[in-house]
């Protein structure tokens, strides 16, 4: 386990170094993504201004929600963007080189690539959470809760990304299918949490865990809800274990399309 972690950290370090070589492009991606994310804040602030507070959700909560979302997206898709490229790897036959690697397959794929724009997401997420903390005048325990919830939210996001990527082994045009599935998961995670009531809340918490990424964490911090904290901890671990099982089961379906190359 430690050996795999050490390898992952080494791969991430090398990826960052390689990406930072093209300094202008790196900085443009970071700044561009951070600016791009502001759009969601503008959107939902106007939404609340027009619609009013739904289910007790305020502008501050929306900022917190976008903070959690961006941070999860940034962490998973900066250092682990390889998992999002799995469909391309399988389609081109490049997946063979991962199969032949003696390292852990999932770690090897996830850390195969790096996205500079993910750093922009991370910076944006941290700023949003900082603003959220000051807007709700969070106490020490609430700040601790935010820090405690980030790994669980990231775990859920990563687990769902792995499950969606597993589709790559089942379809030919998997890239577009996985994009569609990813939108299905991520669209509700960006929406005002107060709108999810009754059946909708159940579906997007237990069946499609979109709300576990940002909505539930914000509600836990706001209401200091221990019940929801327990729920997210259990569900995050469940989704993570389940996604790994799904991934390795799906790998068995892989058929190489390689034309005698080692991929790119």
């Amino acid at each position: 386990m430690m050996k795999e972690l050490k390898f992952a950290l080494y791969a991430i370090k090398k990826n960052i170094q390689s990406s930072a070589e093209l300094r202008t492009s790196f900085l443009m991606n970071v700044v561009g993504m951070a600016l791009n994310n502001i759009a969601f804040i503008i959107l939902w602030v106007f939404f609340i201004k027009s619609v009013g507070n739904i289910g007790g959700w305020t502008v501050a909560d929306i900022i917190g929600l976008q903070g959690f979302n961006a941070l999860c997206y940034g962490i998973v898709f900066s250092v682990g963007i390889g998992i999002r490229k799995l469909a391309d790897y399988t389609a081109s036959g490049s997946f063979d080189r991962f199969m032949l690697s003696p390292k852990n397959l999932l770690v090897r794929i996830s850390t195969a690539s790096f996205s500079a724009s993910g750093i922009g997401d991370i910076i944006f997420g941290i700023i949003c959470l900082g603003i959220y903390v000051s807007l709700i005048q969070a106490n020490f325990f609430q700040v601790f809760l935010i820090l405690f919830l980030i790994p669980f939210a990231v775990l859920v996001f990563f687990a769902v990304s792995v499950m969606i990527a597993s589709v790559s082994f089942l379809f030919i045009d998997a890239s577009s299918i996985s994009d569609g599935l990813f939108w299905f998961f991520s669209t509700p995670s960006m929406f005002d949490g107060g709108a999810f009531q009754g059946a909708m809340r159940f579906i997007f918490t237990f069946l499609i865990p979109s709300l576990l990424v940002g909505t539930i964490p914000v509600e836990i911090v706001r209401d200091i809800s221990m019940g929801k904290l327990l729920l997210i901890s259990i569900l995050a671990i469940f989704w993570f274990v389940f996604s790994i099982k799904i991934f390795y089961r799906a790998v068995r379906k892989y058929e190489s399309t390689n034309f005698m190359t080692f991929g790119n």
Partner: protein
Amino acid sequence: MLILKQSSDIFMKKILKKLKLPAKIITTLIKDRIQYPSRLVVDTLGIISRCVVLIFLYWSVFKLNNGTINGTTFIFVAWSIFFYFAFSVLHLRDIARLMMQDIQTGNVEILLSKPVSYLSYKMWWQFGAGLYSFLIITILGTIVLGLTVGFPATMGIGIFIPTLILTIVCGIILSLYLYTIIGLLAFWIQDVLPVFWIVDKAVMILGGSYLPIALFPPLMKKIALYTPFGASQFITHTIYETWQTDWYQLVGIQLFWIFLFGVFVYFMFKKAKQKVSVNGG
């Protein structure tokens, strides 16, 4: 009289020759999409994953607000969101990324040396690639939404269909020009993705995707009206009551941006071509 007839024949021949390339591209791509329906399945999945989820969420938001927000009812919001996402099935925005790829990989050198205009080929290809999915999804979506949510009264007026088609055509041309400008930037800055994200988000916000224009505050509504980002998505305005009186003004705004961006694309492409050196081989 004979000279007039001859010149008219020559003119018609020229027009038909010009239309030969687009017709060939579109028919080939439609045949391809019919033969391989996976793209349609993916587009349908995409529209379900975003549009249907959003419509469901707005349904619950309107229910919580006793059916009316900002003087608008759910039916208008649902149709506005549907029109936005149906239009997005054309994937016109992808032209920027594809052009960037052509430039980064050097493929543009080969394409520029062909006897057809690179830009017109790219634009027609982009339009043709999404046309089949757009038609099927729009027709099916209209039936499903009509049966579940109902049709707003504004859709029954005589000018609705002709003006809808007109604003779609203008929206397509404007979107292609807008994203072509971003694609052409790759001749100077290579990685245009950060610019693409910002423009794309401006289109997303001002076009009325997640927040329909009926729910916009007055200032934002004005920005959406007078900027090219909002103008490219005027299809979402067609279902509102104001469309009957404002449609010519909105189409006028679209035409203005089309003219301006058309001139800009022309000169930008001219400058860009000077930066390319075809090495042959």
